[in-house]
C-alpha cells in the first residue's frame, strides 16, 4: 500500500515568480490533494480608499500588478465613471483598447517565456522576452512608461497617439507577426514541448463551468467566455471572436494564449484603422455617490471592480476581484491526480498572479 506524504510547494520555488504555498499530499509520485494558502504579499491596497481621493486612487489600483496595470487602471476608471454617469469620448475608448491589447501581448509573451523557463528551454524563454521588448518600447514611446504608465484617468486618457504614431505601431506589430509565428510554432509543434504539455492537467468543459473558471483557462476548456463580448471600450465596434480550444490541457491553454497574441495584433490594427476623431477626455465634476460593478477581460481573465461612493472625495469601498482569485479552485482540482513532476507546468499554465490576487 502506498504511503501518503505531504510535500510543501512554495512559497519560494524556482517556477513561482510570486509566493503561493501548496501542501501537496502525494502517494508515490501522484498528487492526491493540494491545499493552497496565500496571503504572503497582501498589501491592503483596497483599504487605501480611506486615505486617497477617488481621482488619485487610479494610481494605487494600477500598482496592483506590474503586468496588467493598465487594465486595472481602466477597470477602476470604468467603475467610477459608471458610478458618476460619465460618458467617455470614443477616441479615448479606442486608445484605451489599444493599450489594453498591447498589455495582453506583453503579458502573454512574458508568460510564454516563463513557461519555457519552467520546462528548461532557455533559448525559447529569451526569444519570448526579446519580442516582449518591442511591446514595451511601444508603451514607452506612446506613454512615457514601460510598466506602469498612468495614462488612463477618470473621463478618458492623458495622451493621444497621432496618425503617424498609429501607423508606426501597426507597422511594428505587422513586422512582429512573423517572429511571433516562428516562436509560437515551437511552443505548439515541438516534440519536447508537447511532451510536457499535451494531456497534462486536463480540465473538462463541465469542470471548468462548475468551478467558475475564467480567462484563457476557461476558453482552453471549450467555454466561450470573454468579457470583451459585453461591448465595453471599442470592442463593440471591432470584429472579435474569443479564441476557444476544446482539449482543456496545458497545451490547449498555451494555444489559447498564442492565438490571443495574433488576435491582439488584429484588434490593435482595427482600432488604428478606424480611430475616431475628437476629444480624448471629458472633465469630471462632483464626486461618486452610488455603486457600480465594472468588469474587464484582463490577460488572465475576467476582473471585477466594485466602487461605492458617498458623495465625498473618498470612496467608501473599492473592491477588486482579479482573475487568479477565481482560478485557484480550478488549479486545486487539476492538481488532484497529476504526477508530482507535472505540478510546475500545471501551475504555470494557469498563469497565476499572486500580487493581483492578494492586492
Amino acid at each position, binding site marked *: 500500500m502506498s504511503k501518503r506524504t505531504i510535500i510543501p510547494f512554495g512559497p519560494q520555488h524556482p517556477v513561482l515568480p510570486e509566493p503561493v504555498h501548496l501542501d501537496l499530499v502525494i502517494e508515490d509520485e501522484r498528487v492526491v490533494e493540494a491545499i493552497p*494558502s*496565500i*496571503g*504572503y504579499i*497582501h498589501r*491592503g491596497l483596497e*483599504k487605501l480608499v480611506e486615505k486617497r481621493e477617488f481621482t488619485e486612487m487610479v494610481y494605487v489600483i494600477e500598482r496592483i500588478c506590474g503586468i496588467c496595470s493598465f487594465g486595472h487602471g481602466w477597470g477602476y476608471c*470604468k467603475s467610477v465613471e*459608471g458610478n458618476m454617469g460619465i460618458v467617455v469620448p470614443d477616441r479615448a475608448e479606442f486608445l484605451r483598447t489599444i493599450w489594453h491589447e498591447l498589455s495582453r501581448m506583453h503579458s502573454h509573451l512574458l508568460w510564454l517565456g516563463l513557461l519555457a523557463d519552467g520546462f528548461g528551454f532557455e533559448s525559447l524563454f529569451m526569444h519570448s522576452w526579446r519580442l516582449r521588448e518591442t511591446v514595451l518600447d511601444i508603451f514607452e514611446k506612446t506613454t512615457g512608461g514601460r510598466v506602469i504608465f498612468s495614462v488612463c484617468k477618470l473621463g478618458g486618457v492623458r495622451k493621444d497617439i497621432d496618425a503617424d504614431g498609429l501607423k508606426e505601431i501597426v507597422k511594428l506589430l505587422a513586422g512582429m507577426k512573423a517572429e511571433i509565428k516562428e516562436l509560437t510554432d515551437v511552443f505548439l509543434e515541438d516534440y519536447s514541448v508537447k511532451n510536457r504539455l499535451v494531456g497534462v492537467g486536463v480540465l473538462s468543459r463541465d469542470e471548468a*463551468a*462548475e*468551478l*467558475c473558471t475564467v480567462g484563457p483557462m476557461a476558453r482552453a476548456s471549450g467555454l466561450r*467566455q470573454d*468579457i470583451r*463580448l*459585453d*461591448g*465595453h471600450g471599442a*470592442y*463593440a465596434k471591432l470584429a*472579435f471572436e474569443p479564441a476557444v480550444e476544446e482539449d482543456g490541457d496545458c497545451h490547449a491553454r498555451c494555444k489559447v494564449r498564442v492565438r490571443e497574441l495574433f488576435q491582439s495584433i488584429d484588434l490593435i490594427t482595427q482600432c488604428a484603422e478606424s480611430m475616431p476623431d475628437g476629444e480624448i477626455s471629458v472633465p469630471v465634476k462632483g464626486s461618486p455617490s452610488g*455603486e*457600480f*460593478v*465594472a*468588469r474587464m477581460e484582463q490577460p488572465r481573465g*475576467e476582473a*471585477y471592480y*466594485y466602487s*461605492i461612493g*458617498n458623495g465625498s472625495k473618498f470612496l*467608501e*469601498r473599492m*473592491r477588486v*476581484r482579479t482573475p487568479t*482569485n*477565481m482560478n*485557484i*479552485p*480550478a488549479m486545486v482540482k487539476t492538481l488532484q491526480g497529476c504526477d508530482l513532476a507535472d505540478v510546475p507546468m500545471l501551475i504555470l499554465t494557469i498563469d497565476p498572479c499572486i500580487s493581483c490576487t*492578494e492586492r
Partner: protein
Amino acid sequence: MSEEKHLMQEIIPIEVSELLDRVQDMKEAGYRLGQLCAAKAGGQFHLLYSFDKDCALTNLKLPVKDGEPIPSITGVYWPAFIYENEIQDLFGFQFKHLALNYNGKFFKVAEPTPWNPKQKEG
C-alpha cells in the same frame, strides 16, 4: 454582441433567510459565480454576490450585522470558499457550513480583521 451589457447593473436586495434559495435559483438558471465581497457603506455592512450569464451581470446584495453567522454558499458554488475565507479573515464575519474553512488562516494579515476593527475587541 451587445453594446450596452457593460452598463447594465442589476443589484437585488435580499435577506439572510432567502440567500441559499436565491443562490440555488441562480445556479439552476445557469449563472456563473463571478465574485463575492463584503463592504461597509453608510455605517452598514453588506455582502455582494455577483453572477454572470452570457456577459449579463446580476448582483444579490445582502445586509449583514456584526456577529450574525452567514450561511455559506459553498454547498452550491464550491469556489466561493476563496471569498468566504477572505471575508472571515478581513472582516471577521463567520460562515456556517463553509466547505473548506481555513479558520482565519487564509490571508496572513498583520492584524486581525483589518476592515472591521470592532471584532478585535471581541
